[in-house]
Each structure stands twice: as C-alpha cells, then as structure tokens.
C-alpha cells in the first residue's frame, strides 16, 4: 500500500489524505454524508505555455496560441465514446477549463464515483488525436472564440491585458485567436501532451463520501508505471514601463466599462511567496474597496462606482496584475477618483479596523469553501498546483499582516505600470 499522511484541520471539520501514487500526487478529502462527489485532475500546463522545452535542457519549442485549450477539447473527445457522453451515461456531469498556467478536468456525480474517477484518469492520459479530428474541432472552437468576442467583460479585460503586456502570452485569451487556432496541428497537441501530461506534473483530487484508504488502494490499480521526461515550462518576465497606456474599444453595451490595471514586473514563483503575494494584494484591495470600507461608501454615494465595481489581484508563478473596474457613465472621472484613492492609501496606509474586518470575512469565506465537494476539491487542487500544502490558505489567514498589504500597495500601484481599458457603447 502506498504510504500516505493524514492532514486534518479540526476547526473546519475537514481532513485530507495525501499520497503519491507512482509519482502522481493524490489528495483525498472525505466528506461523510455529502451527496455529490467530485474528482478533478489538474495539470501544470496552460495557455501561457506556448514556448517550452520538451525535456530539461532541450531546445525551445513553440506552438500556436490556444493549443492548451485545443488539447483540452480534444481530450474530451475520448477514444471511442465522447467523454461528455460517457459521463452522461454514468449520470455524472463533467467539464474542463484552461487557464493561464493550468488546465483541469473534473466531474461531479451522485453515484458510480469510482468508475467516474477511473475514467477521468484514463481519458486525460490517453489522447486519441488525429489530423481529421483536429480539423473538425476547429469550427467548434472558432464559434466559441466568437461567442467570447461578443462578451463585453471579456473584451474589456483582454484589451487591458493586451495593453499591460507586449510579449507575455497572458495578453492572449486562453482560447487563442481564430487565426492561431486554424494553424494548430495534431502534432502540436500531442507534443504538449507528451511533455506536460505526466504524473509528476498532474495532481488528482477527490472529494465526497468515501473511505479514503480504500479509494487510495483502488487508485493504485489505475495508475500505470510512467516515466520519461517532463517538459519544462519557460517563465516569461516583462519589465519596465507599460508601452500602451490606454486601450479604447466600442461595442453594443448599455454603459461604458473601464478597467484600470497594474502590472508587476515578474511573478513570485510558486509556494509560500505566491500565497503571500496573493493574500497581501487581496487584503489590501478589500480593506480599501470592500463594501464595508468608508472609501467604498463614499465612492458609491457619489456615484463613482456601483455594484458592478470590483477589484482583484491575479498572481501566477511568472506574472501578477491587479485589475480595478466596473461600469460607469464617466470613465475619466472614474479613473481619476480610483487612482487618487490608491495614491492616498499608499501615503496614509490601511486602517487597522478595516484590515481586521477583512480578516474575519475571509475566515468565514474560507469555511464556506468547504461546503460542497466541488469547491473543496477545486480548492485543494488549486493549492497543490501552486506548490502549497493542503489548508495553506485558511491557515495563513490568522497570520496575515497589515504591513504586508501596505508594502504590496507601494510596490504594485505604480504610475509606469498602469494601463486603462475603456469600452464605450457604440
């Protein structure tokens, strides 16, 4: 039997059994009484990995934008029966998502959990990709890309990233462009799969009402011996001043949308530094702009912002950016007011009571994330892919420090790293 450790978080009433099955990291989160169970397989490979080495030290390979997402679609086609159909036959729902640095495949079911989980491991690791199938998929993905282009939130967001980044592939939507997708070949997909869809680069998480030790024994039977090189992702950094300060676009929307973005010159890597960056940024933004802050109240009352306003810090291993924005009738005033607020906060700091309230809110929110098997499994997967142990996030909350958030503000909110994206009604 594979050795395992049990990691418990008593106050949450949660536990995780952690093991490595022939190089595949496995996390099992039992939830007695839960009706739905979830299995998710995450991969450290996403839309930003368009240049990589197939093996450590090997030459750099370049694939078209959108290949990670394309590969995700192709794996869903399955070998004999489409994956959707197979899960539907099992009464389960499945889906997948491609992000900048990761891709994940998951299902939720209320019965036949082990069959569903075995199938997850099987279809993700056994591609059946032919040139004919690749051509057939292009039409479907093109439709999907066009559908996103009709989405105003999507458009204004990627216009912003396109302004903030000149070189980093994060500037492109994970699906790629209609043109880049047309140039994708079956070999591109297989090449990425060979390099990154390797046990050492995956993480398998399950959550539901099961006996974790028994399940672990079952999983051992499904994971074959696999070796071979794992591809090497190439981190990209983009330093210095933002080249495009403003991206303006028009489409049929009811009101203008504005996003202000700040780019960091590089990412924090993975593990603790990543968590630290994410928490410091999140706490800073919420202390300033959260609904209970006086700043929020003042901006809301004066009509600068409304319920559409949001502020978030995105942090990945090799990039980080902060986005603040919403709908407004006065884009110019919106920009000035938000920037003035940030500058003031840099000078005057964050109020202790605001920070403490954000802490309490986060503690409550962290408990809630363990309500469903889906969000439990997703949370564990996200931490594992980011090089963090189970419960790292919830355990860090009580130790978060205001000084760290203030330091984050000073290093992240910088004039030369700012770009603005505006979407006007046509």
């Amino acid at each position, binding site marked *: 039997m594979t050795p395992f450790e049990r990691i418990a978080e008593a*106050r*949450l*009433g949660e536990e995780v059994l952690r093991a490595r099955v022939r190089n595949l990291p496995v996390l099992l989160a039992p*939830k*007695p*009484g*839960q*009706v*739905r169970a979830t299995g998710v397989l995450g991969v450290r490979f996403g839309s930003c990995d368009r240049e990589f080495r197939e093996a450590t030290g090997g030459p750099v390979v370049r694939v078209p934008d959108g290949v990670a997402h394309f590969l995700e679609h192709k794996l869903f086609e399955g070998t004999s029966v*489409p994956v*959707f*159909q197979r899960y*539907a*036959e099992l*009464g*389960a*729902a499945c889906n997948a998502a491609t992000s900048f640095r990761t891709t994940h495949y998951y299902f*939720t*079911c*209320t*019965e036949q959990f082990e069959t569903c989980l075995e199938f997850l491991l099987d279809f993700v690791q056994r591609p059946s990709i032919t040139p004919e199938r690749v051509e057939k998929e292009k*039409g*479907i993905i093109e*439709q*999907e890309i*066009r*559908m996103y*282009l*009709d989405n*105003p939130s999507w458009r204004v967001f990627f216009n912003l990233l396109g302004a903030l980044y000149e070189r980093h592939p994060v500037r492109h939507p994970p699906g790629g462009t209609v043109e880049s997708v047309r140039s994708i070949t079956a070999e591109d997909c297989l090449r990425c799969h060979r390099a990154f869809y390797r046990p050492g680069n995956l993480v398998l998480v399950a959550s539901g009402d099961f006996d974790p030790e028994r399940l672990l024994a079952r999983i051992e039977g499904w994971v074959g011996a696999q070796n071979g090189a794992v591809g090497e992702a190439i981190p990209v950094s983009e330093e210095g001043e933002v080249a495009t300060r403003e991206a303006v676009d028009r*489409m*049929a929307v*009811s*009101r203008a949308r504005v996003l202000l973005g700040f780019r960091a010159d590089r990412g924090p890597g993975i593990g603790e530094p990543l968590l630290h960056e994410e928490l410091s940024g999140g706490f800073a933004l919420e202390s300033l702009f959260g*609904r*209970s*802050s006086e700043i*929020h*109240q003042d901006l*809301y*009352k004066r*009509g600068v912002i*409304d*319920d559409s306003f949001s502020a978030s810090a995105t942090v990945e291993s090799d990039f980080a950016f902060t986005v603040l924005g919403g*709908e407004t009738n006065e884009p110019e005033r919106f920009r000035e007011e938000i920037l003035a607020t940030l500058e003031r906060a840099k000078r005057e700091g964050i109020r202790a009571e605001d920070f403490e*309230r*954000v802490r*309490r*809110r986060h*503690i*409550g*929110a962290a*408990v*809630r994330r*363990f*309500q*469903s*098997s889906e969000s439990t499994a997703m949370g564990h997967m996200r931490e594992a892919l980011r090089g963090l142990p189970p419960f790292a996030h919830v355990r860090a909350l*009580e130790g978060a420090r205001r000084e760290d958030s203030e330091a984050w503000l000073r290093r992240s909110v910088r004039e030369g790293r700012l770009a603005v994206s505006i979407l006007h009604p*046509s």
Partner: protein
Amino acid sequence: MASFESLPVGEGVLLHHLPVDRFKSVTCRVVFHLPLNARAAEAALIPPLLRRGTRRHPDLASIGRRLDDLYGAALDGDVSRVGERQILDLAIDIVAPRHLPGRVDVLAEGLAFQRELLLEPRLEGDRFPAEIYEQERENLARVVEGLLDDRIAYATERCLARMCEGEPYENYPYGTPETIRAARNESVVARHRSLLRSAPTEMFVVGPAGRGEVEEAAGALARALGERRVEVPAAPVPPTVRPPRRFSEEMALDQAKLVLGFRVATRPGLAEDPGLTLFATILGGGPFSKLFRKVREERSLAYYASASLERPKGLLLLHAGIDAAKEGAVTELCLAQVEALARGEIDDTELDAARRAIRARLKGLGDSPSGLISYAVERGLLGRVPVPAAEEEAVAAAGRDEVVEAARRVRLDTVFLLRPPGGAA
C-alpha cells in the same frame, strides 16, 4: 434526505426548517409571494433599498461592518418570477459558529440582523432618503438595461415577452427601465408596508441549526409582522390556443440567438409531472439529448442547443446559437425532434441517460441549501413544500409512455430570432 418540517408561526407566516448537520453554514431565506403585474418595478426596488440602511445601521458601510463582524455573513435579496407570481426574498447565510475562532453567537445575531433589514428600513417620513432612493432606482434601471449584454438571456426574455403579451407573465420581474424610472419613492414604501401586512410569507431555514433557535427566530419575525390580513395571489388563467407566430429583432452581435417557445398543457394534481421532466431532458437536457446530438454534433448547426422548462407557467423553451441564415433549417430540425419524441422514438440509452441526469440533478440539490430552498419555493407555491426525493421516485417510475404523453401536450407558440444586422428579417 429528510423533509422540511413546516409550521405556521403567525397569520400567513410559515416556517420551513430543514436541519442538515454537515453543512458549514445556515441559510435563512424569507420569501414573500406577490402577484406579478405591471407594478413589478416597485417591489423589485425593495431588496436593494433594504440593503442600504436600517434605523440602527444607517448606511452601506455600517451594514457591511455588521456582516463582517458576523464573519462574513452573506446577504442576498432579489425578486424572481415563479409562474405568475413575483417572489421577493431576503436571505442571509451565516457560517456555523463551531467552525469559527472564539465563541460568538453569530447565528442568533445574524437572524436578528436579517429581521432588522426586512422590517426597519431607514426612512425619512414616508420615504426612503431621496439620494439613496434615486441611486438604487437608477442602478436597477441600468441592471435591466444591461440584460442586453447577456445575449442569450436577452433573447429568452424577448421571446417570453412577445409570447405572453397580455398575460401577467409578460412582466419582467424587475420591471422595465421605464417603469423603474417612473416608480415613486412613496409608492415603494407603501408597497413594502403592504407586503409586510398582506403577502403570504415563508421562512426557510436550512443547515446546522436547532429547532429551538429557529422557532424562536421565526416567532420573532411573526410577532414583528404583527396583525396581518393575507391576500393570496390569484391562480393563473390558461392562455388561448393560436397558430405559431414568428418575431425577429436586430442587434449588433456575431452569432444569432434562436428561441422557440412552446406552451405545455400542465396536469393539475400531478406536481411532479415526471413525463414532462423526462421529455425536456431527452430533448435538450445535456450532451446525450436529441438537440445536442442532432443539431450541434451531427449537423454542426449550433454552438449550443438546449431545452428549458418554465414549469410553473407551463412553458418549454428551446435555445440555440446559430448562423441567422440557417434559422429555417434549425427550426425544422428542432421541431422534428419534438415530433420524434411524440412518436415514441426514444431509445433506451437516451432514456437511461436522461433518468440519470435528472437523478443526479435532484440528488445534487441535497448539497445546496439555496438549491433546496429554490426548489421548494418553485414547486411548493405555498403550503406543501417538497424535497427533490419525491420527484426522483416519480421519474424512476416513469418511462416511454409518459414521455410520449408529455410530448403530445407541447405546442409551438412563438419563434423568436435575435439576429445580427443585414440578411433577411
């Protein structure tokens, strides 16, 4: 899953309690039943205004601080359309005290705060503070205008409005931008008072909460509501039969959105109607469905193709994202699928997959407090409050005959196309 325990706690006030110990938080949703009509905007303004201030917590920041102090208690207030009723609700979700550091009675405090929000809005005389009122009114008008940013939802709503012209259901539960902007401050206050006095009221509590504390909170709500004269909204009038009509509207978009609206003759006394559930699921309830396979996969005529039921109103909608030039072909192919089902052309794989999908959906509700409550509100419409298990049994017992019977009760009423500029109208 156990059932809701229902208990009248006051005149027209029912408590529905479902204790579930494994949930991490307690959800309490207070629901008011109103008739759906052209005054929908007045009621729709109430939830956002209630969240702007109470006598003791007079502004957004103090409300936000109170929620933060309760470890991020989450408030949710909204209106929705359930059959020909407008449902107004205000919910609070409170993390179970045992999962929090320290010893705080967040549950009792949270439920008391919910009552405060419902019953003691900050008023100036018989009006909401003018500035707040105007702002929320404008915000809501913009939210409704923003519906057109979600092309699929917008096409669906336009189809419903054309289809149900002259029926209460034509009213969008938030009203229109015009009726919202025309709503008077005093009328909204009056509407709030009248719903406290006369709207049938239900309080749903789901999660790790004991009977005692729940009854105490419900009793406190009933006492605070005081003397009431309850008015139950009238039952819907069945629409007249007519030949199908077609409408189209133009919008700057890439992909046309097709919505086919059908009337479904509902069967009184058969709340579960398992045949109808099965029929809609085989038709367009997942990747195994006829619409998905025939329209999307086999003919590549649509990016998405699905079916949905507006069950309390007796409507079935088919949705597809298409190339506008292919409208005729897609419509024909969709109708052919309905006809195939009416002829009983259903293979065992489809039937099994549909049964499984329904079972998974219904069972899965058991993990979602808000899902359980919404299900109970939609299916219950007062009095009898079901949990999904009854429908699960009914669907398991139903088969091909019930599907055929349901397919024959379905009649095309309206074809609606939201199309990009240019091309034929």
